[in-house]
């Protein structure tokens, strides 16, 4: 592994943009294109938002962990919450599926992560939390 970082932050919605900025700063070492950077920013935003809205059901006093690793031109992000967990991962990953329709959630979070990253894995245990792991090869790296 070439590089690694980990941060923990409160499950406040303000921290969604904080997590995006940290993710961008970390991946900038690989000199990605604007498009690759936007993909990562959006996917991280979706995962962190899910942790806050669904994992912790909007409670602002819980901790979200984001870990990032870099190996060659491949960057991976792990976003973890110790919240309520997902009952049915397959169903949660279906486009437009949402448990929060009344709050105008689009149900597109996992679809965005899947489309904008190369790899996506979701592990969840009811009552224990959810871990989203996603990775992307930075093709336009100058390394």
């Amino acid at each position: 592994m070439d590089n690694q970082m980990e941060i923990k932050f409160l499950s406040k919605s303000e921290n969604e943009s904080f997590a995006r900025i940290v993710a961008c700063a970390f991946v900038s070492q690989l000199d990605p294109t604007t498009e690759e950077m936007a993909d990562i920013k959006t996917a991280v935003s979706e995962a962190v938002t899910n942790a806050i809205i669904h994992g912790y059901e909007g409670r602002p006093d819980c901790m979200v962990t984001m870990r990032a690793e870099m190996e060659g031109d491949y960057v991976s992000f792990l976003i973890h919450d110790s919240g309520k967990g997902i009952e049915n991962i397959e169903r949660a990953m279906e486009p437009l599926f949402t448990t929060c329709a009344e709050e105008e959630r689009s149900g597109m979070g996992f679809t965005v992560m899947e489309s904008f990253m190369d790899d996506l894995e979701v592990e969840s245990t009811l009552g224990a939390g959810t871990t989203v792991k996603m990775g992307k090869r930075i093709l336009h790296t100058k390394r």
Partner: protein
Amino acid sequence: MQIEYNHQKKCLIVTIEGELDHHTAAAVRETIDKELFSGPAKNLIFDFGHLTFMDSSGIGVIIGRYKTVSAQGGKVVIACANQSVERILHLSGILKLTKVARTRGLALEMI
């Protein structure tokens, strides 16, 4: 994030400057709904010329407003979206419901 709006030709034009995510979505929703319910506008134009970031929370905001506007027989047009915002618009399928325009002027012509 800053929201500005003005009325033109029975149309509410909303300019969102900065980032539209879950954190900022509530303020955007409230501002637009207040104007839509109290003002004369039947149609809605989102001017995304100064929008630097949007994730699927923004899609939720657009779909919600589309429901309100289309129920009154109005139209929704998204103007001036940058490339990364346009990618998420395409991915979401929302462009089957709303139109996109390169400029605010073209958006007004589509109404």
